[in-house]
């Protein structure tokens, strides 16, 4: 970059943007690889319990683990579609601090 470019701030440093974007996707991909492997089992068992009480659509259930710097958040998203609860979405969030 020439001095004139620098003085006029003509260019944005795109290499830094590239590096940040790559860091984010690599971090996300690593999380998928190292994520807890009990999630499918947990999902199946939760479903079993909940479906004893209300009708739930299995395909709509989402179980995710989000990772912050300080804690992991286990997020369950279970839309209830029983006759007495009309299309009402309930979100149960359980946060658990886990330092690692």
């Amino acid at each position: 970059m020439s001095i004139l470019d620098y003085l006029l701030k003509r260019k944005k440093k795109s290499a830094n943007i590239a590096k940040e974007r790559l860091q984010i996707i690599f971090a996300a991909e690593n999380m998928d690889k190292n994520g807890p492997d009990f999630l499918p089992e947990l999902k199946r068992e939760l479903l079993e319990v909940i479906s004893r009480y209300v009708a739930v659509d299995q395909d709509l259930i989402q179980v995710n683990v989000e990772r912050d710097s300080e804690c992991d958040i286990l997020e369950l998203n279970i839309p209830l579609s029983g006759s007495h609860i009309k299309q009402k979405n309930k979100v149960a969030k359980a946060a658990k601090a886990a330092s690692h």
Partner: protein
Amino acid sequence: MAKVIVVTSGKGGVGKTTTSASIATGLAKRGHKTVVIDFDVGLRNLDLIMGCERRVVYDFVNVLQNEANLKQALIKDKHCDNLFVLPASQTRDKDALTPEGVEKVLNELRENHDFIVCDSPAGIEQGAVMALYFADEAIVVTNPEVSSVRDSDRILGILSAKSKRAAENQEPIKEHLLITRYSPERVSSGEMLSITDIQELLGVKLVGVIPESQTVLQASNSGIPVIHMNDSPSGQAYEDVVARFLGEERPMRFVEPEKKSFLKRLFGT
């Protein structure tokens, strides 16, 4: 014992074949008996880069399917005595590469070669997996550009998960990072990922940096591996890569921008 080296990248067009040709040539020039194999069945190009396209009679797939023996299929390089090329088939399907067949050919080649360089096709499918499966060492070719770096990360994952060494719980494949098409000027102006950026992102030891250069195209036009171009930076950079690969210490060259005059610096170019 012969060493199997895979030259791989995930992404296409980053310089795998150019690198395979030059590294195999460099190893042979130093007296090591070397064979370079094109694993890109259906899209062969190594023969063109090595300048032996008119001498192809039998190919890798012919050998795998017992239609020819290795001796008939190996093409002796015209510049180096110790170098042989095993071309890919241009007409067959990638599925012709089976683990059993490839292993048999590699074992036969191991008997009387020091190095077997496997030029991988792009992608992460059968051809690419077969090229890396039996490798002892891997050269991951990366351009300073987002999609190439991401694909290199992916291929590094495959190297450590899907190779024979991984399957048999042996010592993992030794990985080397080779950055190609590097432009120090663009790095210093902040518009290209730097060597440090790429190394930090991929976490692999650097074996060399090949600068962006017009010589590479001139070399491929004439079918001469660019390492033969002794007076060009890219040729010399490949020479350094081979030396480092064999354990020599060499400082990185061609990684700093050329000094500009005051006026140029003021107004840009």
